[in-house]
């Protein structure tokens, strides 16, 4: 099955000065992507750029990605306008296990995009979902919903503190038997995984590494995962193919 699709931009908006939300037309990706999966998008630079799927519209045959401008490649992609197109490989990676009925979602940084997709999917299925978002300050807030628990380091919006401070506002009822799914910067995911562990909750995180192929053939995007075999300190697993989603207890932080 060929996964490389030429996708046209059908809508585009700037969420803040350096982050764009782009909607591509691609019925195959819209139909098949599950939350936590990503796409690898071609630009003028040599390698493609990976982005977590932020939303799908199966009826319209479209999907969205959030693009934060980091360098030349992301700058070019974030400047695409309606009617322009590029090659998109996907959907890629394993995605989250969403078979439970009760979830706590935690998003920070560009992790808010896959968390948005998770929220859309889980709430449409009528599942019990709480969402915690963490940002540096008010100017960084994107993909927010009034129902979310919002935290900022600066304290100029929402609760002053980090995601764990947000998690600590949840009631015992909210927490009981919930599965924690977290996407964000490594220190945040590590702290959330530790919080989940302290509450006896299962937690999955989505890891991020510098990537090339996105399909598991080059082995450059590996992350350290606890080995199944005894006597081996760790295994290098491919973030793109074996992940990006891993059980937080398997991750060597």
């Amino acid at each position, binding site marked *: 099955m060929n996964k490389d699709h030429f996708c046209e931009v059908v809508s585009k908006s700037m969420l803040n000065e350096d982050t764009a939300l782009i909607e591509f037309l691609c019925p195959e990706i819209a139909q098949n992507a599950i939350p936590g999966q990503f796409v690898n998008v071609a630009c003028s630079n*040599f*390698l493609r750029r990976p982005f977590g799927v932020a939303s799908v519209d199966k009826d319209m045959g479209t999907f969205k990605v959030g693009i934060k401008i980091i360098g030349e490649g992301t700058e070019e992609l974030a400047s695409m306008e309606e009617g322009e197109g590029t090659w998109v490989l996907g959907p890629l990676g394993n995605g989250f296990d969403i078979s439970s009925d009760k979830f706590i979602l935690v998003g920070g940084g560009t992790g808010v995009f896959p968390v948005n997709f998770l929220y859309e999917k889980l709430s449409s299925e009528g599942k019990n979902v709480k969402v915690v978002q963490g940002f540096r300050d008010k100017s960084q807030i994107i993909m927010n919903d009034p129902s979310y628990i919002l935290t900022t380091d600066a304290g100029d919006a929402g609760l002053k503190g980090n995601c764990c401070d947000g998690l600590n506002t949840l009631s015992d009822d909210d927490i009981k038997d919930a599965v924690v799914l977290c996407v964000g910067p490594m220190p945040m995911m590590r702290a959330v995984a530790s919080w989940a562990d302290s509450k006896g909750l299962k937690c999955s995180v989505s890891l991020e590494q510098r990537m090339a*192929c996105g*399909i*598991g*053939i*080059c082995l450059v*995007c590996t992350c350290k995962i606890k080995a199944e075999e005894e006597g081996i300190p*760790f295994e290098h697993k491919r973030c793109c193919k074996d992940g990006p989603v891993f059980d937080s207890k398997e991750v060597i932080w």
Partner: protein
Amino acid sequence: MSERLNVKVGETSLKSPLILASGTCNMGRELSEIYDLSILGGLSSKGLTIKPRAGNEGVRVAECKAGMLNSVGLQNPGVEHFIKYDLDFMKSLNTGVIVNVAGHSTEDYIDMVKTLDPHKDKIDALEINLSCPNVKEGCMSIGSDAGQVRKIVSTLRELTDLPLWIKLTPNVTSISTMALAAQEGGADAVVLINTMLGMAVDIKTRRPVLRNNTGGYSGPAIKPVAIRMVSECYQVIDIPIIGCGGISEASDVLEFMIAGAAAVEIGTASLVIPDAPVYISEELEAWCEENDTDIASLTGTLKLWE
């Protein structure tokens, strides 16, 4: 598929000159989900060692102009695991099975060939990797010493009847000296070239981007270097050359073959466009039809300026 793409590398017949380069196709599973690999002349396995290797610490990749650096460091499951779980799968792909053999010492290479030889009915050639730049011992350090190249190839020659393709490093003063040494040792073919040793610097941190400091540079940027090396070696050696380095379109294959390659390997192109070999193959067939010629007739037809 058109027979016009059939080639021979010494005694080894391949249905196409296109081979997937080691380290850019894993063991073929992932790409076989994207296109039918039987259109290829062959697939070269991920570089294998006697014991499993975890590879280098990340960051392992740095994007460059017209290419990339990698410092994977021969991460592989070990040859026993390969024989148990991957070799039959590769054989089932209905394309040439090339097994890439790496090591840290002569003894490692001997053990590897002895381990693989009993499975020769499933293997079309052993690609002896004397060129990986990302490990401290063996590989490139052997491949950059003509005496050691000659010695290791002649030692391995005694151990197997399987075709020995020697993959050489461009990080040497004279590639033709190394190719000649491989030929003298009894090689069936040489593969030119592995990656070029390079470095990228993060301006903000003033540290190399790669955790390994250096890495192997691949991609279209190295193609002219590879073609020069193929041409240089073609003047000097009698055994076939498999060209490799920056091939991303059909015209690149034609260039390599005119310069002296009997077949070619496609590497980094697969990391950017996974099914690039499909388009390259179709274009090569069309070119052969248009020019009413077989692809093999191109090899070494370069007319150097006097």
